[in-house]
């Protein structure tokens, strides 16, 4: 928390927000009383003033306006001082009332600042440390033009991205496993690749796909991909092609990755039926409306996006798809009213949260 000598403030209520150590930290204190003072402490690995384009107006602005100016315009700092690689900024505004109901919460204010500070910082500290060495070294296998001719390289990247985006299957690049022969690259789709040694092709494909997927997973910039590739000595031209292709397909890759997950059965549709329950063999003159509701559920979990030809054929031949299900139940009018009220409540909650953000 802020020490009294540094801030010179009394009756200070402080909120401290810690982020990952790589990212800026902001600590905010708001004085109670007529003088609203905001103290922002920014800690960076390399604290460079030129990056701090925080300029705060020294006017009689209430906090909301201050918040808006933070987002849209540079703001003037009133005081600034350094202490152990941190920069303290002090902003003072004078308001008429001690606490105005229009004031935004300090949390929002801090997030506003952090939004700006973090904006330029997206990739700092994100490293592709999770890639195993075999993958990283495998990248080297398509690094040079001598061992891996250009035509083959082109086929490799086209094929890999095609597989990742679900447009083609792995067999187009790698061939199929047939009988005793280990790998049979007789596919017409990749003639140049089939001329190379099968193990090399597999290694190249594996490492390329892993690299691209890992980059997409952490939403890395193309520059990070370039870094990793150049580190392993891939040709500059090839690095360019790869990173450009990665950048173009980044959102599509992230979308496919987002659906590669497991989940509970999901609601995809609903059917309902209204009956008039008149009599049964045990009673007559019942005369009550009765609803039967059937909710369609989708149980598919895409834990692997890459399907082999056999799996695709199986689906086409119309075998029963156990991934669709229905949840059927009956209810009378009161119960359905109860159900609908609860659902509407849930929907309204989200709308309310969305409006306050």
């Amino acid at each position: 928390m802020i020490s009294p000598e540094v801030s010179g403030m009394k009756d200070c209520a402080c909120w401290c927000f810690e982020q990952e150590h790589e990212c800026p930290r902001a600590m905010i204190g708001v004085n109670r009383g007529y003088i609203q003072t905001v103290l922002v402490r920014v800690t960076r690995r390399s604290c460079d003033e030129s990056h701090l384009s925080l300029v705060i107006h020294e006017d009689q602005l209430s906090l909301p306006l201050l918040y808006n100016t933070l987002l849209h315009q540079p703001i003037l700092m009133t005081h600034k001082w350094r202490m152990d690689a941190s920069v303290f900024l002090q902003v003072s505004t004078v308001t008429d009332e001690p606490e105005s109901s229009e004031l935004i919460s300090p949390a929002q204010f801090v997030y506003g600042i952090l939004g700006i500070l973090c904006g330029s910082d997206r990739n700092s500290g994100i490293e592709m440390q999770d890639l195993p060495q075999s993958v990283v070294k495998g990248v080297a296998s398509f690094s040079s033009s001598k061992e891996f001719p250009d035509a083959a390289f082109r086929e490799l990247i086209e094929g890999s991205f095609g597989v990742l985006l679900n447009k083609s299957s792995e067999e187009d690049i790698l061939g199929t496993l047939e009988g005793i022969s280990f790998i049979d690259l007789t596919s017409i789709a990749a003639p140049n690749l089939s001329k190379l040694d099968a193990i090399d092709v597999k290694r190249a494909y594996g490492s390329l796909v892993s690299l691209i997927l890992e980059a997409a997973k952490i939403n890395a910039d193309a520059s990070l991909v370039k870094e990793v590739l150049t580190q392993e000595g891939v040709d500059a031209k090839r690095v360019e092609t790869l990173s450009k292709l990665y950048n173009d397909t980044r959102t599509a890759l992230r979308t496919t990755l987002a659906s590669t997950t497991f989940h509970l059965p999901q609601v995809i549709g609903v059917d309902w039926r209204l009956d008039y329950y008149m009599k049964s063999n045990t009673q007559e003159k019942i005369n009550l409306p009765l609803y039967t509701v059937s909710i369609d559920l989708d149980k598919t979990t895409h834990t692997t996006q890459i399907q082999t030809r056999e799996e695709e054929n199986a689906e086409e031949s119309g075998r029963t798809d156990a991934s669709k299900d229905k949840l059927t139940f009956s209810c009378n009018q009161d119960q359905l009213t109860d159900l609908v009220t609860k659902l509407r409540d849930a929907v309204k909650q989200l709308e309310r949260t969305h409006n306050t953000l």
Partner: protein
Amino acid sequence: MIILLEDKHKEDLQFIKEQPTEVIAEFVRISIEFLRRGANVKLYSGASKSLRVPVAQVEAVVEGLSWLFAEASRLLVNEEDFLATLTILGFSPELNAQITELYISHRSEIRTIQSQLSFDLPHYKDLNWRFDVQLSSRSLRNQVTPLFTLCFNIEDNGETKKYYVESDYTNLKHLADELDNALRETKSTHSRRIMRNIK
């Protein structure tokens, strides 16, 4: 709707005519207890001893009365019709009034028992919901995906099963809208006409 009793029934119930009011009330009580829980043989032997009649006679009377009440509840016979049924048997008016009163007071209970005899579709009991935001998964970091988790409590033959289901906002809204339409159907003219006319 008047219930027409078979002759054998009428014979069994003739026995009641001669009995004093308290005994009749006792018989009615026993017959309703019979509907609730089945025959109680000890009670019959006790009654037969006190009334000096064979047990079979007591049983016949009880079963006859039970059948009368059950049938009347099943058809939801109203007071006048029930009175008319009793008049056919030739009971005295006070007796009729008494039995009718007892019938009316126990009718809803008998109907509840009867409804339990029928089969039941799995029906809705309760719904719990929860709103989450998915931040990451093994395949993808840095996500912000809102989603709802619902728990339907469905009762089937006495046991309550829980069904956990996921949904996003659009599907949930669609679900709520569709079921709202379903509810509004009961208020439509067509449904109202049918419900009013089928009595």
